């Protein structure tokens, strides 16, 4: 069954104009998100997945950042060009974000309650009187004990896990249709991580909410994701249902990622590395940006940039290996 597409990112390019040159952090990302679906953005640090997330709501620093090309269509509305007040009414209300590090993403000088209620009051001005109740309910939903008390706490008085859950509660406070979670489990330990994943799974099921889940941790992708998009050097190089990605990855980079995964349930701080360095976003290699590290590199890879190729209907990858015109196979 074809679910309704709620968000479509088309050839998005977000560049940062710095003194050292143009940092092409997002350099042509495209994907779609269906209603009730969880899409994972996967990649090494610095690959541009976080900036992609920020670009959806235009949250990167501007200047120096700028969306130079592409569209983000939410229900047909282009978020990259729409007026600021309109965008603001969507931020936090229709599309909410949960950040990686709750410690620094929460304002240290306001209570959790203040910060949650502030969002409710901004988007639902008539909610005033019961914004506190709503906030309490949200914390309870996040399985935070003594929610009413927790609302009066400052971030520094909470444990890391509580903060992260409070952060998610804040994201959910206006019943968004899309939740963008940017590595929400990096800064917490394993047990908390399991809890958070569980909460997200439950939410998705209960609220029919779409989730963009950003992570470098493939083990999480398996647990939560419906589909996954692999990002490399500011581009989506492969996008496919999670089982495809994990079981029969197409792009050499994805293959590399998967093969580096010694034990998918192990807690890894960092991905085991693929030989070579991630490319410098100021100076992205010509042709396929992965070619300097690619085990199956061909001459064409150095000059021609591969396009997204449909591999198996649901699996799409950008690699010359799958281009019949290039390889003659298939």
């Amino acid at each position: 069954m074809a679910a309704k597409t709620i968000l479509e990112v088309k050839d998005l390019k977000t560049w940062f104009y710095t003194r050292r040159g143009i940092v092409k952090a997002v350099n042509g990302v495209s994907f779609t998100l269906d209603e009730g679906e969880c899409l994972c953005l996967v990649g090494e640090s610095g690959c541009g997945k976080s900036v992609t997330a920020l670009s959806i709501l235009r949250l990167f620093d501007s200047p120096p950042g700028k969306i130079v090309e592409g569209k983000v269509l939410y229900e047909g509305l282009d978020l990259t060009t729409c007026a600021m007040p309109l965008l603001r009414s969507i931020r936090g209300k229709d599309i909410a974000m949960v950040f990686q590090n709750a410690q620094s993403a929460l304002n240290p000088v306001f209570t959790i309650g203040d910060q949650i209620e502030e969002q409710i009051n901004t988007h639902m001005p008539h909610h005033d009187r019961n914004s506190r109740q709503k906030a309490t309910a949200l914390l309870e939903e996040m399985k935070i004990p003594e929610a009413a008390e927790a609302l009066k706490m400052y971030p520094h008085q909470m444990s890391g896990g509580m903060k992260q859950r409070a952060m998610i509660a804040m994201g959910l406070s206006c019943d968004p249709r899309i939740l963008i979670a940017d590595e929400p489990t990096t800064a917490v330990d394993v047990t908390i991580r399991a809890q958070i994943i569980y909460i997200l799974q439950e939410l998705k099921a209960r609220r029919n909410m779409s989730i963009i889940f950003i992570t470098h941790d493939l083990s999480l992708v398996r647990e939560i994701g419906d589909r996954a998009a692999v990002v490399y050097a500011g581009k989506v190089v492969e996008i496919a249902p999670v089982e495809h990605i994990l079981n029969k990855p197409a792009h050499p980079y994805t293959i590399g990622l998967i093969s580096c995964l010694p034990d998918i349930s192990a807690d890894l701080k960092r991905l085991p590395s693929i030989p070579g360095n991630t490319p410098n976003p100021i100076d992205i290699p010509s042709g396929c940006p992965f070619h300097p590290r690619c085990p199956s590199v061909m001459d064409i890879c150095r000059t021609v940039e591969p396009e997204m190729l449909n591999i198996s209907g649901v699996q799409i990858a950008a690699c010359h290996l799958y281009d019949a015109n290039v390889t003659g196979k298939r």
Partner: protein
Amino acid sequence: MRNYIIKRLIYSIIIAWGILTITFILLRVGPTSPVDRYILNIAARGQDVESVKQAIEARYGLNKPITEQYFSYMANLLQGNWGWSFSASMPVLELIGSHWIYSFQLILLATIFAIILGVGLGMLAAVKQNTKFDYAASIFSFIGISIPGFWLGLMLILVFAVYLGVFKTYYDTNYPIWSLENLKQLILPVMALGIGELAGYVRYTRSAMLDNLRKEFVTTARAKGLPERTVIGKHVLRNAILPLVTIIMFDLGSVVFGGAYLTEIVFGIPGLGQVSFNAIFANDYAVVVAVTLIGTFLVLFINLATDLLYTYLDPRIRYE
């Protein structure tokens, strides 16, 4: 918390006592005498200077041993008796009571002027970082920090009072404190006194704002869909204000005893600065010690208030 305050208060009293003693000793052990400045006048009346000197010193108890003077002064002070100013011939407290308002209004207005404009400009400069406005604000703040306040005061008088005649050349105490005329005649002094602080606040606010603008919680706030004015005016400012509070409070202490005095001199405002400095020249130790003591307590109080304000502004800080 209460223990902390009590500890701080005791500590303040010890500091104040130390300062009191140093001031007392400097004034009473130094070679100067209150009679010095009248010597020619006494001589002009054909009097024997030495006997008049002895008469005056005897009258004010200045001929007693220094330790006796010190202990009797301390004993009086502990009973709430701040002594008698022989140079102004009134009780020290009354003297301070009739002059403090002139310093207070000046310092208050200058501080308000500096905080509102300084923090405002600093915020704008931070938000418009690297624009022409930002550069202009930065240059302005360098100029403001570097311009000597007393000289600026002179120049303001020269231009606005002497040449343009927009203001009086002096401060007129005949206007009631709460009158528009008084407010008007305070414009130049407040500018002269406040410009340095203002310029400093522009710089500090800008950098504190920039520090916090880069923080992640700002992105969070924006992601929540808050209007920019709430993001800057609430989330960023509230964090940026923390280092500012220390600086503003510290400045207040130095303004009370530095700039304010010079401004009072230049504009002829009869505030406590003038009182204390006239007292120094008259060797009137009771006044000097009292004003120093009040100033010290004020600074200590400001410090304590800063700490307490901090616990309110920054929930992460708690004193044991």
